[in-house]
């Protein structure tokens, strides 16, 4: 087996002066959901899945396509590979927070 140190996430060093904060502007909201792939992200807080199940049913009834995702833990930001997968597979994302 190979060691797991740093092997799962690829890390690089920022070559800039770091005077500019890393920020991304939010994508524009689509005027309509027609034809869009809708990601439903469960952060795994209890009963978040109940909300997302109902939402998925309603979206599917309108003929919209949904994909489900789960964070490994609600206490940490989503792993970068999960974020990348969502970004590449979905047009919009609904993240459910429950408490």
């Amino acid at each position, binding site marked *: 087996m190979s060691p*797991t*140190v740093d092997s799962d*996430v690829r890390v*690089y060093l920022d070559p800039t*002066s770091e005077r500019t904060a890393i920020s991304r502007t939010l994508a524009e909201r689509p005027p309509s959901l027609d034809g869009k792939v809708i990601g439903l992200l469960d952060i795994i807080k209890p009963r978040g899945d109940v909300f997302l199940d109902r939402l998925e049913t309603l979206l599917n009834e309108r003929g919209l396509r949904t994909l489900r995702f789960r964070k490994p833990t609600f206490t940490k930001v989503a792993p970068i590979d999960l974020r990348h*997968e969502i970004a590449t597979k979905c047009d919009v994302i609904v993240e459910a927070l429950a408490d």
Partner: protein
Amino acid sequence: MGTPLPDGIVAVVKADCPTCRLVAPVLAELRAAGVPLTVFTQDDPAFPAGLDPVDDTELDVSVALDLDTVPTLVRVEGGTEVDRLVGWSRPQWEKFTGVGPLGDGLPEHRPGCGSLTTDPAVIERLAARSTGLRSRRLELARLEDEAEAFFERGWTDGLPVVPPTPARVLRMLGGTTRAADEVVAVVGPDFADCTVEKAAVNAVMAGCRPEYFPVVLAAVEAACTDEFNMHGLLCTTWFSGPVVIVNGPITTEIGMNSGVNALGQGNRANATIGRALQLIVRNIGGGRPGEIDRSTLGGPGKYTFCFAEDEAGSPWEPLSVERGFPEGISTVTLFAGDGPRGMCDQKSRDPESLARSLAWALDSVWHPKLALITDAVLVVSPEHGRVFREAGWSKARLRERLLELGTKPLSEIAAGAQGCAEGMAVGPGGVKSAFGGSAGDADAATDPAEVRIPKFVPDGLLIVHAGGTAGLFSAVIGGWARGAIGSSPVTREVKQ
């Protein structure tokens, strides 16, 4: 390590080690005998089965114990190591644990294997984790394309870069004795601090090897002086960029090219040292074309322009010696220059004739009718250099002659003379250079044929020797605005 070691016997093993697999039943015997045993595993978290191994795949415990070998037994009292044993030896294990007989059917002795912490690939990862590199981390998903990710962030010069992983940056930092957090220079136009670490990140991206890094650091220092004026050079509408001329033993030590195609492509050191400087100006200084870099046309030298002087074959003393450094000291000389323009003279066999050709080539810098506006580098090739060597012309004599030949009467180069509006302006107070400085005494009453104006100032004509041994060609590297108005050449020692 965050938590102290558990008291009793600590064993560190890895599944990949045959000796560790051999002693797995012995560890089970110890556990069965009531020995307080904790097993840490470096690779497979399930090995050895049945002994509740503690996952040390992050190697925190192994690093804290400074292990060379697995299996290693450590006796711990009060959270502190008091004794240790490496490899397998039946009598030593029995003595160490106080349990026996152990390992029925096993050989008496078996050396251990290397701890994963000694694996060269792992060492670099561990070092990257613990050396305190301060640069902001960028994380990419496995499916993201690294080259594209760097393009998207605007961190390249238009060509792909080597992704700056912590391990690569650490290797680059191994090329210098300077501390990673030391500030090398303040880089314009943003006037941001460039630490040794930040320079290393960009040197990795440029493709440098660690042994080039001292040259990069010296070039950054030289470029960011007030005399060289990297800020102004970056912002100008003119063509120039920093030209890096390297002298001294380091040029051969790192395999720089001063011969065939010296000003061209194909040599890693030449290419990447110049590129590293440009990436530092871009990424740390914030100098990006179309933003604060306003060059009208630019030039290919703004990707990279770095070469070594051919000292061994030169008829003259090296540029570095001429500029005040002892023979044997490695230096960089930064010159704010355009791309090279070629000059052909295949007929001159005497130095006076060849000097005339070179002077004509130098006349064309900026404009044949503009004088005292810029400096220039003359790159004399071996076949042209031979003419001066055989005639016994020193570099000083050649320079003196070039300055004489480049001195023109105002009647030839004044604005409007020879049917061309461009040229030296005459106004109140005398002849003006293009940037308003005085270029000579004259007024409306002066006979312009009597006023003679040199093209260059004496220390504004740098002469170096480089190139392949075939070709009666030399090159002129024209400069940007000279002196206090623009840039002066700057030489710095390359320090390891």
